[in-house]
């Protein structure tokens, strides 16, 4: 079952790793900058992907957390603080904003979680826009420089790559920890987990905090990359774009955010020079993926599991619904079908 597929996938991974390591030697400066941006965008998408895939909580406001961290760095630079203080400011702001996100959403799920995070993200944007004494308002903060250690494009690229790999590894460990398994249980049946005596709200609080810290890291990298900070970093479009990326890439998959980020950032930068209406194209692509390929592009490469048919529910998305609604809508819209497309669930089925 796993023989040839895992070899192919291993080989593909090795090729990708070699390409990623050699990229600075092979590409021009602006292409490398674009690749760095793709990695950072993928990291932000990963911060949204973790609670979406593991707990079933899709955030539409994580750009707000990333922006808070980035403002921490930018404010520190503006006031002549050292790197340590800048990062401390970024960390403090990340934890503060994440705690607000986590505390207001820990008793919710599904679309209510999405709506509240959306509102929170726009709040951060509003504060960034209006509190111009600190944030520079609409014109933003300029003259930010990244630390000397990775002044050059290739050095910064390798740093970002290393951070991304490290974060993915840590998130992998987190997912395998007792808390991570519990979160997955909450995703699959919140009701059952709560009946078993697990405390749901604190677990969700921690999940959002962890994903918030990842978003904060992405925010710091982002401001180091652009060396400029404006409220647009926190805009709804940015948060929504992270969701677009994980849906296009495949919700809950490790490579999904990277796949989606390469595609979306690529469309933004290359197509925007030929086509003025690229957001329309991106929106249309997104709608098409949601309708026809709810498992995302990653599901096309996944071996051994069938692709969900158009209109049917991807298990990771299905789990996003409160259990009461899920049962009802299933009876109405979908005749009982074996769940397809989720390796996690399939494996569990085989084991018992």
């Amino acid at each position, binding site marked *: 079952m796993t023989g040839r597929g895992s070899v192919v996938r291993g080989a593909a991974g090795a090729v990708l790793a070699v390409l990623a390591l050699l990229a600075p030697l092979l590409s021009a400066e602006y292409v490398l900058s674009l690749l760095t941006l793709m990695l950072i965008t993928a990291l932000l998408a990963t911060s949204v992907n973790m609670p979406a895939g593991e707990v079933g909580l899709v955030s539409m406001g994580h750009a707000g957390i990333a922006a808070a961290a980035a403002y921490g760095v930018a404010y520190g630079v503006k006031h002549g603080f050292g790197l340590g203080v800048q990062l401390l400011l970024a960390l403090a702001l990340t934890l503060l904003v994440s705690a607000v996100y986590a505390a207001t*959403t820990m008793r*919710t799920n599904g679309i209510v979680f999405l*709506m509240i995070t959306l509102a929170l993200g*726009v709040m951060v944007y509003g504060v960034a826009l*209006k509190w111009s004494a600190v944030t520079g308002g609409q014109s933003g903060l300029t003259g930010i420089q990244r630390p000397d250690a990775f002044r050059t494009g290739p050095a910064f690229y390798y740093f970002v790559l290393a951070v991304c790999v490290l974060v993915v590894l840590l998130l992998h460990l987190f997912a395998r920890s007792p808390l991570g398994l519990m979160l997955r249980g909450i995703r699959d049946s919140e009701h059952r987990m709560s009946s078993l005596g697990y405390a749901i709200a604190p677990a969700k609080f921690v999940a959002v905090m962890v994903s918030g810290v990842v978003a904060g890291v992405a925010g710091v990298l982002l401001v180091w990359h652009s060396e400029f900070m404006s409220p647009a970093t926190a805009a709804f479009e940015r948060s929504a774009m992270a969701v*677009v990326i994980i849906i296009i890439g495949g919700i809950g998959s490790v490579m999904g955010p990277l796949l989606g980020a390469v595609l979306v950032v690529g469309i933004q930068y290359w197509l925007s020079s030929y086509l003025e209406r690229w*957001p329309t194209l991106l929106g249309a692509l*997104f709608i098409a993926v949601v309708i026809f390929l709810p498992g995302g592009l990653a599901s096309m490469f996944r071996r051994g599991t069938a692709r969900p048919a158009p209109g049917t529910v991807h298990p990771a*998305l299905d789990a996003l619904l409160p259990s009461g609604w899920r049962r009802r809508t299933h009876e*109405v819209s979908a005749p009982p079908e074996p769940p397809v497309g989720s390796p996690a669930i399939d494996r569990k089925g085989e084991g018992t």
Partner: protein
Amino acid sequence: MSWDYLAVQVLNGLSFGALLFVLASGFTLIFGLMRIVNLAHGAYYLLGGNIAISVNLATGSYVLAIVVAVVATGVVGLLSERLLLRPVRGNEMLEVLVTVGLAFVIADLSLAVFGGNPRSLKVPAGLSGPLEMGPVVYPKYRLILVALAVLVGVGLYLMQRHSRIGAIIRAGVDDRETVGLLGINIGRVFMWLFVFGACLAALAGVAGAGILTMRPGADTDILLYALVVVIVGGLGSIQGAAVGSVVIGLIDSFSRVWIPEFSYFAVFAPMALILMLRPRGLLGRAT
């Protein structure tokens, strides 16, 4: 602070709240029955406002502007529901995501068609100008907004309580399957309700174009307010939307004067408080 000044601020809050109610009522109506969080609602608002401005510029007629804006946005709503939402019917998360994509597309096409400059609607002389009420002088148009909101609210209440379609909607909120089993084409009810919600958003856009500007980004700004209103008032509840609109409108009006830098934050604070103390909202029902 004088009483006159206070009265003006209260009226500012109420009239903005009135605009929010017209917008949020469509949003909450769609959510109540269909469980769709329509994140394209702000885009419909922007579309309605922009169409009204263009028609008004082209023909000079205010009434025609309203009619064309509402009908055209209704058609867009109809197409959205039929072509895009129908295929993912029953999965709330996919439906929200479709409306996100739709919001992107409508916002971008609006930028292409209507341009990036802020535009507003010229209100006819009969509706504009100041109105003297004792010591307080206040723009007539903003008071008309309050009247419009009351009209919409009472109309929706009567429709829900005393009409057949209202009975179907109320029954559908409680139990969609049983309504379907009774021989009612619930799919068709969904469709027309969605169109109706889009029309309400367009109406809010036309009304809002008289006091606010229609520009890129206005859709997400106003969507935030609508979200906060329905979260505070309780998802799916028209009465909740009314209460939420007044509360948020007043808070917004006063915070803009007292703490302009944190006015967004002031709107958010009651939402956070309510989420922690009473997650279903002021008048929402437990799910």
